[in-house]
């Protein structure tokens, strides 16, 4: 939280390392118990890594090996999502999904995927012909397809934020810009040294994603290696959105680290093309490359030929924290463990796709492992409900008039492309986690996400940040530490 400093003496019951979707889910689920919980995050906000940088698809579970944790938790996470989305007030949509095929070999592989899905308990899988594709998504190419009705789309940032804010409202404290640099265990207590302070705790949960092998080694379990595998995306203008009502995937290449270059709508009406798949050296290199962009255009156009260059709004990249190396390829199951050599540490390593879908069941498993040695008493004040920012756009004129009447800031349109109002920007700045970076505001309320990319709204957003947070121009950050937006005043 903003301005919170921690003394060396402060003692937690549980420290969670990492506030991606898994760390936030563990925080939220643990806040059901009467525990003092802290989250240590190296970035200035939740959801800055893998959790935010993906296709935003709630998977059904037909890509994962039967009997694996991946398969079990993916199916479980998908099934339970309606309820958590309601509690956290987050946008998502059960669109279903098509995996398209063209050749007889493709058909055999789709049948195999269906069989895997059936074994995993995925509901309603069918092989459909061109006529059905025409009804479901006429602009999508493919001779036939695997149709998965339970697949959904969601906003991965809003989901993670919903979990984290709900955790915060139930007493969990978040410490941003705190990268864990060392973990010591003495007298039954972990001392977590970060770039900012030292925190003490009885329990540690490693949810560090790309950094999970490093944290695991600090916990004395040094045998893991994370192989960062980058995936790049294009974000397309909502103009093309109506052509793609659901995610459309190719058949995955089993040797590759991902599910293949696909096209998917977002809950906000954009379309994503991606991801590429490229093993890289660093776990912090989110740059986009010309080669990958060319591949994306080729791969995306194969499934959705209507894609045009004028639709491109932005690129981004995510990094998969893979346990499999480039030569090994494919997927290895999630590691979720509590070992005798570190009985008060739960170690999560290699949580990649379908980690977003599986986050809550993973959190359940973490708590089950903890409760093997300690019984937690319930937090009677726990409230599972969190309210998101009420958007102005997509409301009826009557509802919009009502919103302005209640709060005149709703009448001030700050972002023209996406019709975002001052009320929403202020709500984003006044968020329960205390984040006030430009991208923090952007992910919370969609300013700067439209086709003009902040040409109209960014001066207004910067001014509101300065006003609300009492910052000088030099202090306004774009995203992480060091990403200063301005060098001062002109005169």
């Amino acid at each position, binding site marked *: 939280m903003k301005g919170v400093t921690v003394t060396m003496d402060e003692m937690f019951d549980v420290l969670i390392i990492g506030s991606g979707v898994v760390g936030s889910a563990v925080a939220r689920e643990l806040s059901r118990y009467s525990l003092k919980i802290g989250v240590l995050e190296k970035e200035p906000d939740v959801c800055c890594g893998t959790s935010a940088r993906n296709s935003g698809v709630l998977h059904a579970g037909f890509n994962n090996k039967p009997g694996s944790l991946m398969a079990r938790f993916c199916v479980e996470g998908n099934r339970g999502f309606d309820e958590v989305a309601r509690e956290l007030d987050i946008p998502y949509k059960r669109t279903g999904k098509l995996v398209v095929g063209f050749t007889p070999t493709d058909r055999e592989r789709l049948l195999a995927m269906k069989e895997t899905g059936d074994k995993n308990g995925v509901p309603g899988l069918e092989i459909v012909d061109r006529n059905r594709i025409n009804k479901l998504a006429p602009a999508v190419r493919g001779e036939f397809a695997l149709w998965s009705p339970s697949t959904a789309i969601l906003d991965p940032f809003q989901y993670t934020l919903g979990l984290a804010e709900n955790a915060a409202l139930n007493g969990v404290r978040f410490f941003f810009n705190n990268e864990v640099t060392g973990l010591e265990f003495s007298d039954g207590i972990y001392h977590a040294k970060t770039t900012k302070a030292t925190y003490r705790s009885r329990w540690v949960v490693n949810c560090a994603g790309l950094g999970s092998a490093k944290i695991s080694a600090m916990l004395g379990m040094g045998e893991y290696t994370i192989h960062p595998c980058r995936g790049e995306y294009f974000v397309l203008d909502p103009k093309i959105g109506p052509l793609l009502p659901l995610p459309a995937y190719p058949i995955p290449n089993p040797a590759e680290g991902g599910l293949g270059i696909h096209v998917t709508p977002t809950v906000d009406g954009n379309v994503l093309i991606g991801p590429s798949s490229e093993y890289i050296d660093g776990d912090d290199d989110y740059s986009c490359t010309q080669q990958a962009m060319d591949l994306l255009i080729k791969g995306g156009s194969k499934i959705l030929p209507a894609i045009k260059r004028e639709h491109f709004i932005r690129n981004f990249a995510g990094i998969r924290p893979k346990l499999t190396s480039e030569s090994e390829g494919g997927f290895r199951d999630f590691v979720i463990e509590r070992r005798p050599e570190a009985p008060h540490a739960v170690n999560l390593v290699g949580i990649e796709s379908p980690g977003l879908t599986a986050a809550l069941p993973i959190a359940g498993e973490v708590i089950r492992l903890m409760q093997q040695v300690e019984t937690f008493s319930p937090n009677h004040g726990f409230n599972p409900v969190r309210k998101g920012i009420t958007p102005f756009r997509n409301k009826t004129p009557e509802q919009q008039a009502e919103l302005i009447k209640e709060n005149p800031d709703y009448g001030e349109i700050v972002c023209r492309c996406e019709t975002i109002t001052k009320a929403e920007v202020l709500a984003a700045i006044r968020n329960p986690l205390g984040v006030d970076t430009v991208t923090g505001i952007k992910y919370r309320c969609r300013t700067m996400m439209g086709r003009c990319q902040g040409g109209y709204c960014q001066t207004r957003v910067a001014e509101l940040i300065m006003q609300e947070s009492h910052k000088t121009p030099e202090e306004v950050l774009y995203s992480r530490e060091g*990403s200063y937006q301005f060098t001062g005043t002109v005169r």
Partner: protein
Amino acid sequence: MEMIRKRVVIIGGGPGGLAAACELHRKGIRDILVLEREHQLGGILRQCIHDGFGLTRFGQTLSGPEYADRFIDEVKKLGIECITDTTVIDITPDRVITSASASGLLQISADAIVLTMGCRERTRGALSIPGNRPAGVYTAGVAQAYINLKNIMVGRKAVILGSGDIGMIMARRLTLEGVKVVAVFEIMPYPSGLPRNVEQCLNDYGIPLYLSHTVTSINGKSRLESVTVSEVDASLKPIPGTEKEYECDTLILSVGLIPENELSLKAGIELDPRTRGPVVDEDYQTTTPGIFAAGNVLHVHDLVDFVSLEAENLARAVVAYLDGSLPSCGITIETDSSIGYTVPQHISGEKDITLSLRVRRPMKPCTLELWQDSKLLATKTLRKAIPAEMEQITLPVGQLVNTNSVKVVARNA
């Protein structure tokens, strides 16, 4: 919800909208409403504090705010109603406007609507420049707004991509404020802005302009640290091996303007893929009856004077429309590959019409020609023509032989 009626509603209180408002008033229309989203009238001119505006329209050189003030004073003097701090969020094909402000939602039913919303800037994302996404990458207009309107400085050492007019003007502006401007890089083999700006904004300050070069990577994880620049070949593809890294903390993009037509689309208006503005007839009427467009929302202009002059022409057409006396426009204007676009796209053949156009590539002495079938209707000789400058040619109505389309071509002399 409140619903009011208006004779003419003008969307956007910049140099186009205000010029249209004044001209409408002069022609006897009194029931006019100008809607402006900013707190002040004037549009983008408010941040254009350099001079060079007004030579054509007012016969003297003015700064942007001075130019805007001419119209703002006139609007005030005439008592034309202007509502600021109000954003139009919807226009229906039957001309009902919905606008939002802190005082509520307002619906206006208008006999005629004038679209003068201007344009927006092309962004990094639209170009898909590879690399990281650090702080310190700004479009030229955004940097100009921070510096000139908000008194905030964006960086200390800048590279400029694109030789658009705003980019070159910002090169000078940044230099005057003590920022080191390393260079301007332009992907085309010729500057995309006006020659006078190359002279007055770059050459006068010793800022190098590299043609046939582009940024091929943006580097830096937090704040921009450098850009990689490559030479491009004749097909504008980067040439491997020519990469050079330039250290900088700021990248200014001046890579084109796009008419802002999101509202036009809601009103069912057809856009021309070449101008990215509405398809209009000789009276500036769009494909939705009673909705007119002029200025940068129609096509991107080189000089603001032409924006105001175009809007004044539009105002006269709106008056005729309200009188019920606009002709139907069945003759289509076509172009060949030498011409980027023309405005208008349709004419009636009942009066002389001045076509605005841009050539697609720079030409030495050349002629513009208008053809119908095999008949040459009109020619105009130019000493030179460049895409950065708008050209005009008049089509004399007496020359038309039938209602077939008219073709515009540019030929080397």
